[in-house]
């Protein structure tokens, strides 16, 4: 009586257990909802990024304005009469570098195209020579075959002419009154036959030699072709190596220029940041012309010789300020923040 419910329960038990322990199957509705949530997330994160960027730009404008006012005040008080004022990065250096680099790339492309055209011409010329050589060989073969046929026809005609003069010669019969005639005719015929045989042998030898000559010609052609290909490949390898070397040099030069540009355009000052600790100084910098480099700085108080200041560094440098870009900590200095001079001592962009 009670067996059926127990049986059903036992049957349903594995399903229940698997639903509890393992992953469940998602319905089509759930999958659609997941896809929609991804779309929504993408849009909202992009919007948030745009808002953050606008906020940062406003913050940057405000900072620049504050900096300008501070500079004006500094000039009025002549607090930095022995130091040059903080200036905006020198314009045009990075643009000039980019323009020069693009020019190099364009020049390299033109050289590659010229090299490609040269190889195409070389290939066409080689093909034409090969075709001409094949035609010449074919003509020579036809000429030899015609010569052979002509000689065969000639020998046939000579045999036919010799046959009526000595119709019974083949059987060895002769008449007593014509002994001198009959003795001269076979000799001439024999000479003729010998000549024909010799010509035939010569033709046979020539025919036998013809394929050998063709093989030799083909081998010679293959050898020349192989040498040509090898020369072309060697030239391509050399050109490629030269191109790689040029690119490497251009890249190294570009990196060097970027590093130099980073150092020369750097303008920085020491500041305190909200929540950053009492009298703890941080770096506020101009926007770097290139980001992602590893850089080193030196902060000095007036009267401190170059090299004896506080050294600090930053990997993957993107510029610095309080809450904008990196927060780069200088630490405690012996003089107030507005008297600290900060220099970029080294930059590595490779």
């Amino acid at each position, binding site marked *: 009586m009670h067996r059926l419910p127990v049986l059903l329960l036992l049957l349903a038990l594995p399903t229940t257990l698997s639903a509890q322990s393992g992953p469940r199957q998602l319905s089509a509705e759930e*999958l659609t909802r997941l896809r929609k949530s991804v779309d929504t997330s993408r849009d909202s994160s992009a919007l948030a990024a*745009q808002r953050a960027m606008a906020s940062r730009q406003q913050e940057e404008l405000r900072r620049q304005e504050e900096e300008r006012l501070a500079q004006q005040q500094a000039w009025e008080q002549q607090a930095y009469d022995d130091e040059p004022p903080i200036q905006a990065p020198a314009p045009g250096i990075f643009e000039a570098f980019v323009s020069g680099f693009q020019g190099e790339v364009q020049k390299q492309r033109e050289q590659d195209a010229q090299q490609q055209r040269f190889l195409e011409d070389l290939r066409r010329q080689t093909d034409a020579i090969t075709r001409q050589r094949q035609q010449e060989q074919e003509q020579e073969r036809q000429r030899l075959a015609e010569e052979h046929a002509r000689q065969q026809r000639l020998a046939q005609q000579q045999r036919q002419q010799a046959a009526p003069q000595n119709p019974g010669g083949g059987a060895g019969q002769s008449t007593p009154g014509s002994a001198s005639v009959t003795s001269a005719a076979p000799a001439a015929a024999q000479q003729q036959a010998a000549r024909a045989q010799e010509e035939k042998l010569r033709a046979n030898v020539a025919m036998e030699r013809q394929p050998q000559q063709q093989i030799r010609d083909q081998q010679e052609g293959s050898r020349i072709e192989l040498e040509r290909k090898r020369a072309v490949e060697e030239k391509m390898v050399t050109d490629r190596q030269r191109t790689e070397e040029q690119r490497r040099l251009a890249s190294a030069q570009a990196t060097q220029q970027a590093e130099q540009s980073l150092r020369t355009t750097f303008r920085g000052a020491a500041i305190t940041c909200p929540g950053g600790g009492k009298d703890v100084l941080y770096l506020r910098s101009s926007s770097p012309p290139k980001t992602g480099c590893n850089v080193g700085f030196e902060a000095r108080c007036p009267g401190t010789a170059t090299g004896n200041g506080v050294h600090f560094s930053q990997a993957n440098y993107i510029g610095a300020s309080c809450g904008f870009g990196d927060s780069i900590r200088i630490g405690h200095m012996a003089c107030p923040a507005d008297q600290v001079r900060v220099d970029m001592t080294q930059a590595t962009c490779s």
Partner: protein
Amino acid sequence: MKSMKAVSTGILVAAIALVHQHASAQVKQTVDGAQQFLQGLNAGGGSGAYPVYVVSGFATFDGTPAMLKFWQKAIDDIDETGTRNPCVTRITDIHFSSPTIYAKGVRWNMGDRSVLSLPAGGFPVPRYIHWGKVSINRQTVALGDGTMPSYHVYAQQTTAFGSSGNWESIGFAPYDVGLADRIEYAMKFLQASCDTSADTGF
């Protein structure tokens, strides 16, 4: 007559089942597939998507809670009992030498590790992410002028490191928005499939 009707109904049901099965076979979206996708992204240092492990509340920086971001080097799907579990991702190798430090709302200099303090005994590895208990979030990050956007997708779970408010997350940061969509979808698929609380009906 009745038996004929029953037979035709049976054929119809079988046909619908076959069509449904065929449609399911075309999709082939499974938790194992999602795990495989994420593990593939992680392999080789992350091909196109930088794999990261982020932990908050474990360390302090200059006395305030810090968030540390590490390069996540290797993951698999083994759980704490040592058996394969598609609802768990185990992080087996983390590159500890150069973390990115976030504290007081900004990113800090690597050279400031002197003020970074970790609990005695260091950081316990491996880490286990339980997909049924994570929340997925996504951020678009760009340079100051809006260029070079990258898309950070994280699966975050609450983990007690000894005090409240701590969490850890597994994430990927591709530069391609399409790849970010696929990562987010795979993570949300794992989250929904492994969420045991869905059986409650809420």
